[in-house]
């Protein structure tokens, strides 16, 4: 039916399924599962085509991601640490300011609660800013290629 070579990536699971559907009429043990109608077969082949494309794209993306290797992973860790510390730092500062004001003005625990929430907002603001800066950094380094395109002959 479908030549193996056309689907180099999805060939293994697909061909198993194909063989199963092809062998049914030959063995003729289950009369309920007859040969697929031409329409169904066309639809099936279309789905196989789409799946093959999808797999090809996914594999290409995976390969591009792997080119960065360890350095990329280390950078990812640095980015992650940065995000978490930005958020936690702001919450801690907000809480501390609120607590200090509470002690000073004797309004326990209200200002702490207010400033804790404000600290959370500041943390999110920090993260958004850090994200924007990282985005710029990554775009500058990769030229906007974040691993979605397929490597071409120049690579």
């Amino acid at each position, binding site marked *: 039916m479908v030549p193996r070579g056309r689907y180099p990536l999805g060939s293994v699971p697909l061909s198993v399924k194909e063989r199963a559907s092809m062998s049914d009429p030959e063995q003729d043990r289950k009369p309920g599962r007859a040969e697929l109608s031409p329409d169904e077969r066309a639809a099936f082949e279309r789905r196989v085509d789409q799946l093959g494309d999808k797999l090809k794209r996914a594999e290409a993306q995976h390969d591009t991601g792997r080119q960065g290797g*360890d*350095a990329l992973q*280390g*950078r990812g*860790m*640095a980015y992650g*640490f*940065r995000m978490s*510390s*930005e958020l*936690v*730092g*702001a919450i*801690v*500062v*907000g809480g501390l*300011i609120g607590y200090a004001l509470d002690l000073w003005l004797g309004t326990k625990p209200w200002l702490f609660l207010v*400033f804790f929430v*404000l*600290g959370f*907002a*500041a*943390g999110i*603001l*920090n993260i958004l800013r850090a994200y924007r*800066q990282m985005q710029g950094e990554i775009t500058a380094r990769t030229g906007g290629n974040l691993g979605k395109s397929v490597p071409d002959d120049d690579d």
Partner: protein
Amino acid sequence: MAAGSAQGTGMPDPIHQFEIHRIIPLKLFGYDVSFTNSALFMLVAVVLSAGMLIYAMRDGSLVPRRLQSTAEIGYEFIANMVRDAAGEQAMKYFPLIFTIFAFVFTCNMLGIIPGAFTVTSHIIVTAALAALVFVTVLIVGFAKNGVHFLKLFVPSGVPIYILPLVTAIEIISFLSRPISHSVRLFANMLAGHITLKVFGGFVIMLLGTGSFAALAPLPLIGAVALTALEVLVAFLQAYVFTMLTCMYLNDALHPGH
């Protein structure tokens, strides 16, 4: 240096490596200012980084040799970072930024040597560095822009009725900088070294279990791989610390945006 080394006891205690020992006990005006293993490794880092750069540039030849080339790459790297992140004006503060980078980088790298003490795995050290940057930013900001520096906290184009809220958030955001700045470096170095030590401990513990000793090379391989990752983290964290210093300085020089 042997007195300052906390390792080599064979005891798998991952925290032991961060203990501070007095090498030369010293008291000054009632304060304990002893020369510790931490101070020793700070001194080693300063001497090593400064010495290497001075030695590399001893000829200052037009066609650089290997060491001079390395030093020049380091200079170009930081100089480009300063120009990109904070503009040409910020080159005035290049000595400070380069010193911070060289110090942090050398401390991080020294810490990877087995038995060495990691200065930057103590939050008091990174907090002092972050506080230095924070105070510098405040001084430069007010000296350059005067009261206009406070514009940093009052973004333009915000409706008046939520301005107090936004200003409070901006101030908290600004004050949180030294905390995240210092915690990041400290946490990375601490976590990395504890992980390394735990893996090292696994090797020792497995060796003492008879037939299971055959598994001992596995954590050893893990430790080797982790060391490679640690080298990367040591550089990246020094880079990130310096990069953020440049960005904060940028805010001090151009508070408008």
